């Protein structure tokens, strides 16, 4: 079981500055838990995502699949001319457009759930439940692997940057 160090902050802005200072001091901030989404925290933690590429792929595959389906239905399997329009018609575009969005969104959502190991009825993993109320929790992962001096230094940094509370937690957290 890994031990994580938690710095608990009372204020959003104090915590944001704390993250900058911790990172300047060479401390890797693993994650942040907060009661509400914070604008820009994500790039501050230097996290990246490949999710948009997945969305693009789903959209492209979806468009091709939907076109194949429409083509097969109205040209190959059941060619029915109406209104003097060609069988392979321009009005496919609307269905392709809507279905591309639909497939792209749905599969992106499912990919997100899969990658974050989330599912309905999952038990919540929270290092400190107060992060759903009014506390901002900064997680520094796996302090067991660090030297004692380093741990003391991190503690000091957390204190200096205005953490209202510092504690260790053994709750297993999902890694990004």
């Amino acid at each position, binding site marked *: 079981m890994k031990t994580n160090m938690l710095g608990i902050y009372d204020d959003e802005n104090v915590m944001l500055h704390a993250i900058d200072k911790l990172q300047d001091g060479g401390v890797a901030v693993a994650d942040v838990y907060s009661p509400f989404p914070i*604008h*820009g*925290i994500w*790039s*501050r933690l230097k996290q990246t995502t490949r999710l*948009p590429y997945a969305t*693009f792929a789903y959209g492209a595959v979806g468009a091709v699949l939907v076109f194949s389906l429409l083509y097969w239905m109205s040209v190959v399997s059941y060619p029915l001319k109406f*209104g*003097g*329009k060609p069988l392979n018609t*321009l*009005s496919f*575009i*609307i269905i392709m457009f809507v279905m591309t969005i639909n497939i792209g969104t749905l599969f992106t959502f499912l990919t997100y759930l899969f990658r974050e190991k989330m599912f309905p009825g999952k038990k919540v993993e929270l290092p400190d439940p107060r992060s759903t109320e009014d506390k901002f929790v900064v997680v520094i992962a796996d302090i067991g692997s660090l030297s004692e001096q380093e741990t003391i230094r991190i503690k000091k940094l957390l204190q200096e940057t205005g953490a209202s509370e510092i504690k260790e937690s053994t709750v297993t957290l999902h890694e990004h």
Partner: protein
Amino acid sequence: MDKKVHLSKTFKIIMIVMIVLGIISVIAEFMTQDSTRVWANLLLNNYYFLSVAIGALFWMALQAVTQSGWSAAYLRVPQSMSNYLIVSFILFALMFFGVHDLYHWTHADAVAHDPLLQHKEPYLNLPFFAIRFVVFFLLWILITKRINFLSLKEDKEGGTTFFNKIEFNSKVFIFVFAFSFSLFSIDWLMSLDPHWYSTIYVVKKFIMAFFHGVTVITAIVIILHKQGYFPMLTKKHISDFARYIFALSIIWGYMWLSQYLLIWYANIPEETVYYIPREMGEYKTLFYLELIMNWAFPFIFLMWNRVAKNENLVLFAVLVLIAGHWVELYMSIMPSLNLKHSITLIEVGTFIGFAGLFGLVVGTSLSKMPIIPKNHPYLSESLHDDH
């Protein structure tokens, strides 16, 4: 913060040379070409730069109404364009000399033999046309000047009262603009072919003006940044501008398809008459080029996050779009008047002339006020928007 744009002598000389080039092109065209073509060309450029200015002002109004923070530092760029509205008013007034060359419905004998034009006469007649033109321009100029005045006063006195007043005026402007610019587009562009109409036409022109405006604002901001102004311009800001362009290219493509698909599907001769010269004849290449330049290219190019955050690549996209918008207007005006397809040095020269005038007016206006509105309540959010 009080920095103003310094206009170098070379800039002024270049702009004046461009204007002279434009005047030479127009004179040359008057001497060599049919007068309808000259007026059509002038209408194209006049409408082009009007829609840039008014679209940019619409963007500014939208920032106030949505209380956007990120854009607060860049509001002076669209504000400076309200001065061009006055210039545009004069230029459009001159267009009345060519009204008979352009608009079939202004000929009394043509109306007398045409039941359809008679039916439209209560709206499409010259006096009412002129009244609408004057009223619309006066409204646009008054409201945007009022917003400018309030914004400059905010610079001196500060506080949130001006912010709220600007927001109110922006709401008024958006309503006025949506209604009046739609009718303006019907008057000056759609009535070139008075027998044909499309209900989506004005929506497309409205979106086009917005698209135009944002594109040109982005161009000016990036160019000024390269000159050393707007030191706080970050990748985030660039990507916000790029997102606007990206989203508007999709809406524009959507409107294009909405108009085309319905006419294609219904296949009624009165409606398809619009697309026959555009899609079948000599305009065929431009018909597809218009769609590629204004929709396909920005859609695919700006989709990449890395492109959307790179100011040189965004500037490149913007330059393509500036040409693309010209093609769009060329395609709506020229085939409606049964003119032959020809893009020569004269067309290019006229555009350069108008661009020079626009640049001179906007540049001079920018040099007269601080380029960053220093007491805007959201300024700090805009200046430190670095994530």
